[in-house]
């Protein structure tokens, strides 16, 4: 709650400062705001919230440890991204403040998404998250790809919102309330059993699947990811995905936890389809960013496994660890990608050729990130996968086997970049210079990956 306020205030401040202040100031302002919010979140998480606001607004949202933990994850991710933004946003001049402001607004939406206790808040959260993103995707106004990304994202996003709302409505009609507990008790008391209720849930599944880019509602992702500015893509791939899953899980572990027979098959099918389609399609990509888009889709497939066993012990922690690991690795990978691709005006894998000789540390960061994304031990990405698989194993062993096969397939495309960096001789005549801020972000990122590897317990223990 505090973090939400801090973020909002920061957003306003940055917006106004954007009219006159220097680039440096803006970066520091935004980063500072995020860090303060992060501090507040972490202190709430460990020390506990003494304001009593939580109880006051408990019917709408509650910042329990689940919400705070996810809040910390996205704030951390955002902080890392803001660390990159000084260089990443170097093309922006007059709209810099607006960009920061929109990102911060978007995070406000994300906060609603994993703290809601009422579906209205969920809906609003999603919209607050999405609407700035539609704009941000198109924030390179002179770039046709960026424009196209914005329109595609917007149209499909609005369409998905319609679907989601229809679902919410039908659920409301069945249960007579938007309150998650109310829905849950309606399910328990057997009041909400009709087909209308089922259809409502399934439509909500469809709507949320769009947000987390699960097949077959994923079509926007590759195009939007590759068309958007790199910073925004990184933001979408990390924060948006995390928020989407946090909301997905929160909804299904509280409201619909007892109507599993309605949505289990559907989500299992979506998960299976998502993993398989994303991983196989990614094999063909030549462009790193597009590959990351498919990778992000495939991760959605794995994460859906935890939704399947929503409410079970460990499932929430598994999502938390997974999204954290995924986010950090993705940010690091994007950091490297941006330095290489933007200085080279080439986003394909061949841009990385011979990077290990030019910038061994940069290559190492990319390698570790990619290994973590691929879930190869002992990187934290492995633990993410491990806890997901373990959580879902007893209920869905065959799905786990499929996931495992898909993990093996994913090696092929993840390693393309490693192959380019390490094993392909260098034919590019360009030189890569790494901005200082990037070095720090990568250092923090890699350290975090290392720390999490040593002690995943600290994360797992956040959600009791």
């Amino acid at each position, binding site marked *: 709650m505090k973090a939400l306020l801090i973020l909002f205030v920061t957003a306003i401040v940055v917006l106004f400062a954007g009219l006159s202040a220097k680039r440096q100031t803006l970066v520091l302002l935004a980063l500072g705001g995020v860090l303060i919010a992060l501090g507040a979140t972490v202190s709430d998480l460990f020390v506990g919230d003494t304001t009593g606001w939580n109880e006051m607004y408990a019917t709408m949202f509650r910042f329990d440890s689940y919400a705070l933990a996810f809040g910390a994850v996205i704030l951390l991710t955002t902080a890392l991204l803001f660390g990159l933004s000084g260089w990443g946003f170097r093309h922006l001049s007059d709209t810099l403040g607006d960009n920061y402001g929109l990102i911060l607004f978007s995070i406000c939406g994300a906060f609603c998404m994993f703290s809601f206790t009422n579906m209205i808040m969920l809906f609003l959260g999603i919209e607050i998250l999405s609407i700035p993103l539609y704009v941000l995707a198109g924030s390179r106004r002179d770039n046709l790809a960026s424009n196209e990304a914005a329109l595609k994202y917007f149209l499909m996003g609005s369409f998905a919102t319609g679907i989601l709302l229809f679902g919410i409505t039908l659920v409301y009609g069945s249960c007579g309330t938007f309150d998650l507990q109310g829905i849950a008790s309606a399910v328990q008391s057997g009041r909400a059993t009709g087909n209308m209720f089922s259809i409502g849930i399934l439509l909500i599944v469809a709507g949320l699947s769009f947000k987390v880019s699960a097949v077959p509602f994923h079509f926007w992702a590759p195009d939007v990811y590759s068309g958007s500015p790199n910073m925004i893509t990184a933001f979408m791939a990390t924060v948006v995905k995390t928020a989407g899953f946090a909301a997905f899980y929160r909804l299904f572990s509280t409201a619909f936890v007892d109507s599993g027979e309605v949505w289990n098959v559907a989500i299992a099918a979506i998960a299976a389809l998502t993993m398989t389609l994303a991983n196989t399609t990614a094999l063909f990509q030549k462009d790193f960013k597009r590959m990351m888009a498919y990778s992000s889709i495939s991760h959605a497939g794995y994460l859906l496994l935890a939704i399947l066993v929503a409410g079970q012990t460990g499932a929430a*922690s598994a999502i938390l660890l997974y999204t954290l690991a995924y986010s950090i690795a993705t940010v690091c990978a994007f950091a490297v990608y941006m330095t290489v691709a933007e200085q080279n005006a080439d986003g394909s894998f061949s841009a990385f050729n011979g990077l290990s000789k030019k910038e061994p540390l940069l290559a190492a960061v990319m390698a570790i990130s990619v*290994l973590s994304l691929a879930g190869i031990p002992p990187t934290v990405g492995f633990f993410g996968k*491990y806890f997901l698989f373990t959580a879902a194993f007893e209920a869905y062993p065959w799905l786990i086997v499929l996931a495992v096969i898909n993990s093996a397939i994913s090696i092929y495309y993840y390693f393309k970049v490693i192959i380019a960096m390490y*094993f392909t001789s260098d034919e590019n005549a360009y030189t890569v210079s790494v901005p200082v801020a990037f070095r720090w972000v990568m250092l923090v990122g890699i350290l975090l990956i290392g720390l999490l590897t040593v002690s995943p317990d600290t994360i797992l223990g956040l959600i009791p």
Partner: protein
Amino acid sequence: MSLYLILIPFVSSLILLLARPAASRSIALAASLANLAITLFAFSGFNGDGSFNHEFSVPWVSSAGIHFRLGLDGISLLMVLLSNLLAPLIILSSGGEKYHPEARYFGLLLMMLGALNGVFMALDGLLFYVFYELALIPIYFICAIWGGDNRIRVTLKFFIYTFAGSLFMLVALIYMYLQTPGTHSFLWEDLVSVQLSNGAAWWVALAFFLAFAVKMPIFPFHTWQPDTYTTAPTGGTMLLAGIMLKMGTYGVIRWMIPLAPEALHDLSPIFISLAVFGIVYASIIAIKQTDLKRLIAYSSIAHVGLIAAGIFAWNKVGVQGSLLQMLNHGINVVGLFYVVEVLERRLGTRSLSEMGGIAKSAPNFAALFMIIMLGAVAVPLTNGFPGEFLLLNGVWNYNPWLGALAGLTIIFGAVYMLRAYGLVMFGKPNDSTLHFEDINIREWVVLGAVALMVLVFGFFPQWILNITDGSVNRILSVVQF
């Protein structure tokens, strides 16, 4: 103590990779020798009754029952001895211009060493898995950076194939873990004590088998191996064949059979048959190979097939034989691949048709190669023999026909090894081999050390068998089927 065996390589690996010092080989050598010293020191006060010595255990993910637990029983000690005995040799024998930048190479090598030691000492299922995969990364890099033709395609196939295999092991491990009572645990003892239904045990055993069969490799999962061994730089090949494939055989002894003994009664005939068929199959293929490295690669499939067959026979003779042979095969194969390296460095080719008559110009080389070759052919009083004897005896005890079929290895082994030796060493020298330079000091040290071990372990196999005796007794008594 067991922790140091992992820490020293990892820390020195990090130093090498990050600081990239010039004297990388010396640092790597020092680290590996320190490890060897610790290994030997671990023998003192070693309790050979099969219990775990020098245990180190801290909770890793306590909420999920995952421990960082290391320990050494006889079997582990032997494997650790193997890896730390071979590591200095491999470090001595590789490096140089072909491995530029050296610091990276040795850094990766040490990382691999640490991971291997971890694999052999881990007493927690997940820890084992983590080390098992961790070992794959440095070797992949080694092979793909410094490898030969087609290295990218071949090594990627190798990586994905083995990784895919071991993922099934992960699934099996998770399944076992979920069967442990109470708050689940990955500790070896807890996993072993789980009673599985027959059907479940089948799946678990098959999943493990897939992982280990690909790793070793056993027919018909071996097709990555000849290409990879051939393509990899010799240092990498030594690591792969000398130590890494033992991860598979070790895994079968330590994990697969103890965890799913219920299924082994039904499945071991299949596994043994595959292994034995693989022996004959690979041996026959090896006969007509023209690339020396590929020839040795196929011979390695045959040898490891015999080791696997001995394990699956699951009697004391077979298991002891397999353990003995793991060590000795490691020694031999490192020697053989080093011979290839020496040849390739001087002649620029591995093709047998372009060699011949080298014994004339390089008698020392010829003599040492001869000794190592005899070890590989399992001539008595070389190290290859006692293991092969016990293994064949073990398989024979399991089923005489299979034993006889497996025994063909001693014939075919002689056929292809002698052919190779003859084509390299005998005959008239050609233009390039006429002035073949005899081995230099460093090559002397490596080949001499290998040859010495070939003879010492050939005369005194019981030294090795004593290490593992108690542990094999224990593991056999724990698991009966």
